[in-house]
């Protein structure tokens, strides 16, 4: 049998291919978008069916806190984007600092979210609580969707934060450099998606009255 | 197929024949061509294949022809369907209910039945409602089917044009005894129908509690002879202790007036051990207090 040595396939699945990783991340983001998309369909239909109830319920939400969190997320998006610029320029230290700002923003966002949720739960508006069970027609759906959608979003914040922590760790270790920063890019893409979804959640829940 | 017994049958059958006709033509034609090719161009007869990349004219032809054909099929399907959603103004309006696993009907004069009786050649409109899960009201002979959805926004109408008795079936899966959820529709000449319609429900010596139970499909899940169906049997339970699960905790309760009333109004509150929760709906707004009393009196008699 012939040993045709010294040949390797030009396009190999075992090569490091930054473009492929990025494409994979984008495709994953598409599925994430449609995961939330399904919930937006539910939101739209129930809002069409229970127009007034949704408007009334949204008064329960705190616009100030919502706006504050929006700003927090937008700023964190910028710092992630900037950290990519920093690593491209070879400034790992700055990149790490910017990522820490993002991480901090994630924590702030979650803390604010915690206060918002506990206020609702305190009012008995969580599914299964007494007030929730006796809400007028349609309002229960609003609060269910509020908890379900912001909860799923918060879960994404946590995943994104973990991802960013990994990026910080690897940048420190010198594993992410000006030549090789795919992970930073992908974590950034994921973080922007979290922001993107919040951009829609915010007006749909807080600003409809 | 069954004989069509409503005005819709013609439209439905016509579109069925048209689609089936075109389909069978293509199925037989393509299969024949395929078999012919396999024989004619067999390796032995045709050792050297000819490479033909494709043919744009052919591609256009076999895009355009199916397009026209499917639009024709759509058209006939639509025309056969259109009258089903155009209800004449003078239709007799009847409420139809589905519940696990029984159909029931309420006539304009308050008459309650568990099978349908309709006049010949008169439009009848049914408002479809469900007391628990999805059901589907299906009369094959009328070529008619609409789902019974809780919340009750769906309806159907028909005009029977052939005397006789036809099956009503449930076509949407609705749980354990789905295939036994049957009823019938009897088509009577107008005079006979009117006579039937005016006649007060026959007074029987049946226990009023039993009548209530029959009307509300209690007996599809609870037997009177001690056998276990979906829920506990009624036989000999009155005055006895049973183990129930209340909010996940087991406890003993005496089956008395209060317990039975609670079980009818809030079936989920104390579920007898070994039975499923969630299958029974609340009858709080369905039964009157007097009816509940009748039921309790009847259960007492089942020793």
């Amino acid at each position, binding site marked *: 049998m012939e040993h045709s040595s010294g040949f390797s396939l*030009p*396009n190999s699945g075992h*090569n*490091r*291919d*930054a*473009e492929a990783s*990025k*494409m994979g991340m*984008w495709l994953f983001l*598409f599925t994430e*978008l*449609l995961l939330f*998309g399904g919930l*937006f*369909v539910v939101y*739209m*239909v129930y809002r*069409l*069916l229970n127009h007034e109830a949704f408007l009334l319920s949204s008064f329960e939400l705190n*616009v100030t806190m919502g*706006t504050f969190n*929006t*700003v927090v997320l*937008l*700023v964190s*998006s*910028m710092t*992630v*984007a*900037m950290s*990519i*610029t920093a690593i*491209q*320029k070879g400034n790992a230290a700055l990149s790490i600092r910017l990522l820490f700002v993002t991480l901090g923003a994630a924590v702030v966002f979650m803390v604010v979210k915690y206060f918002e949720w506990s206020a609702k739960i305190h009012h008995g508006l969580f599914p299964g609580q007494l007030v929730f069970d006796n809400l007028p027609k349609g309002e229960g759906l609003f609060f269910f969707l509020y908890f379900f959608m912001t909860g799923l979003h918060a879960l994404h914040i946590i995943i994104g934060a973990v991802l960013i922590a990994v990026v910080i760790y690897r940048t420190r270790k010198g594993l992410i450099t000006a*030549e*090789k920063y*795919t992970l930073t*890019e992908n974590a*950034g*893409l994921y973080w*922007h998606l979290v*922001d*993107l979804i919040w*951009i*829609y959640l*915010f*007006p*749909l829940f*807080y*600003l*409809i*009255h | 197929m069954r004989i069509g017994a409503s005005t819709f049958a013609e439209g439905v059958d016509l579109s069925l024949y048209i689609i089936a006709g075109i389909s069978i033509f293509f199925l037989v034609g393509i299969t024949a061509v395929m078999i012919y090719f396999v024989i004619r161009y067999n390796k032995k007869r045709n050792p050297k294949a000819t490479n033909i990349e494709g043919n744009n004219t052919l591609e256009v032809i076999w895009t355009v022809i199916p397009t026209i054909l499917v639009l024709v099929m759509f058209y006939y399907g639509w025309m056969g369907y259109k009258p089903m959603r155009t209800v004449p103004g003078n239709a007799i309006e009847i409420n139809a209910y589905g519940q696990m696993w029984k159909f029931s009907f309420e006539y304009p004069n308050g008459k309650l039945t568990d099978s349908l009786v309709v006049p010949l050649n008169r439009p009848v409109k049914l408002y479809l409602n469900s007391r628990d899960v999805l059901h589907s009201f299906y009369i094959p002979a009328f070529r008619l089917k609409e789902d019974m959805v809780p919340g009750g*926004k769906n309806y159907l109408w028909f005009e029977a044009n052939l005397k006789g008795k036809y099956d009503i079936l449930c076509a949407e899966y609705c749980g354990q005894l789905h295939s036994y959820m049957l009823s019938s529709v009897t088509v009577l000449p107008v005079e006979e129908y009117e006579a039937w319609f005016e006649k007060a429900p026959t007074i029987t010596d049946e226990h009023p509690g039993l009548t209530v139970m029959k009307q509300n499909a209690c007996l599809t899940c609870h037997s009177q002879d001690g056998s276990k169906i979906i829920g506990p049997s009624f036989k000999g339970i009155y005055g006895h202790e049973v183990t129930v699960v209340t909010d996940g905790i087991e406890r003993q309760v005496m089956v008395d007036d209060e317990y039975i009333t609670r079980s009818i109004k809030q079936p989920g509150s104390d579920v007898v051990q070994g039975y499923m929760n969630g299958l029974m709906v609340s009858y709080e707004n369905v039964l009157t207090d007097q009816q509940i009393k009748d039921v309790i009196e009847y259960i007492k008699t089942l020793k």
Partner: protein
Amino acid sequence: MNTIKQNHNDQGHEEHPIVSYREHLSTLVALLLLTVMTVAISVFGSNLRTLSVATALLIASVKALVVAYYFMHLKYDKKLYTWLLLIVGVLFVSFLILTSIEFLNR
């Protein structure tokens, strides 16, 4: 043996233009302005009702596009990604339209 010309071996990292800090900062300013706009419309324009919902969603979409275009580097990436994102958007919007056709006509 016939070997294939390896004219484009596009493995590894393709060249990415470096986006300036300044551009990121102006993007953020634009996003913040848009946020202020939506909140203002919602708080002060409550008599506009449906109109305000429509504008809120419109502004949200503008913000989303800004995020995707600048922060997510669509501006500098292959056009493929922009197209794919648009297709996904169209798909999702058609789900919304089809279901609303159904529920609005009940």
